[in-house]
């Protein structure tokens, strides 16, 4: 039951994009087509889960014993950057079909604040390893949901006449606001 609540809260109530404002650049940049959005979302899930587990273990077994917690930011971002590189090489060599669908998105993910954000958040929330793992899945699934919804709306909007100065990002932001407003309604669920 607790796990179910964690998922509902991370996907709907505290959606990482619409309520916590993490990962806006890919949200506005890669949401022009549903296929691209799904690829980006899947890659984010993959990297976020790996990065959260790795940084958690690193924090527990290296940083805490050596009292290096104050260097959290620098270690985490370097771990994530290295991890993304390794994942890219590994997929290219071992799982070419997966690389073909996710590989192109990987370099962009290093600087996606959702990944580093989740890795830091699980420490601020004081989760244990298992809960962190579940939370990272749920949070990035929320990202996937939001970006795919947005891409669906945008594909339709491409056929509409929009005032020139509202085209592109301003319009995307206002749509995000309306989506965020509807997600706000999920607050009553918990």
């Amino acid at each position, binding site marked *: 039951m607790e796990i179910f609540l964690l998922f509902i809260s991370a996907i709907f109530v505290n959606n990482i994009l*619409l*309520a*916590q*404002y*993490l*990962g*806006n*650049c*890919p949200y*506005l*940049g*890669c949401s*022009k*087509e549903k*296929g*691209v959005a799904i690829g*980006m979302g899947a890659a984010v899930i993959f990297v976020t889960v790996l990065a959260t587990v790795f940084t958690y273990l690193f924090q527990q077994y290296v940083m805490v014993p050596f009292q290096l917690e*104050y*260097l*959290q*930011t*620098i270690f*985490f*971002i*370097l771990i994530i*950057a290295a991890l993304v590189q390794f994942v890219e090489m590994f997929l290219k060599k071992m799982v070419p079909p997966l690389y073909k669908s996710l590989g*192109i998105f990987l370099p*962009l993910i*290093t*600087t*996606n*604040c959702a990944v*580093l*954000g989740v890795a*830091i*958040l699980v420490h*601020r929330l004081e989760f244990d390893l298992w809960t962190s793992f579940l939370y990272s899945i749920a949070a990035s699934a929320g990202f996937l949901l939001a970006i795919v919804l947005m891409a669906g709306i945008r594909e339709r909007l491409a056929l509409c006449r929009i*005032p*020139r*100065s*509202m*085209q*592109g*990002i*301003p*319009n*995307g*932001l*206002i749509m*995000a*606001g*309306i989506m*965020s*407003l509807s997600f*706000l309604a999920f607050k009553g669920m918990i």
Partner: protein
Amino acid sequence: MATVMQEFTKGLWKELPPFRLVLGLCPTLAVTTNAENGLGMGLAVIFVLALSNVLISLVRNIIPKKVRIVCFIAIAASLVVAVEMLMQAYAYGLYQQLGIFVPLIVVNCIILGRAEAFAGKNPPLASLADGLGMGLGFTFSLTFLGGIREILGVGEIFGVGLFGPSFHPFTFMVQAPGAFVCLGLILAGMNYLSVWQAKRAGVQLDPHFDAGCSGCGACKMMDQIAAQKKLERMNPAQG
């Protein structure tokens, strides 16, 4: 000297980071629930951006091209750790208010965007001017957005009440949807202004004009990917 001055002033209006270049949206949306938080975040970004620009510009000829992004991130991360410690020591309340967005300055596209677009190609003095100007522009924008949201959402500015007890606050503005809508409207206003200016000057604007995040290049890459996928779908035989 004149060019250095130019680099400084361009960040203040012509290339205002969040409103014109559309860089660094996450903190822009997240910390602007009031003007004070916006100002504090802006100051932290000025510090990191100015110093990272200078350092990157100093080492720009030493780092190999292939690993430059990782080097930029490492430099920015060290500076962010310094900012975190300074804030914990001297502005603990603000540090707690800004939450995870202080460490997230590392992955703010404004830092990497300026490093890629400017500091990696220009001498230290010009880079310092660019960093300071961009940082100041960012601070102004965040304080402005925070001010609007605070006035409408709480009826205060910098914590000082404005309207008296009869004012009914527009709570929507301090919540997440308000941030998105408010920023969207400001960006639309800026676009409208540049279209109007171009019309008055008699210049034809590019018909595919889009306030693009020119710094990070992610969107451009995504468009290429989308085009490529479309091609693949049209000629499945080749794939």
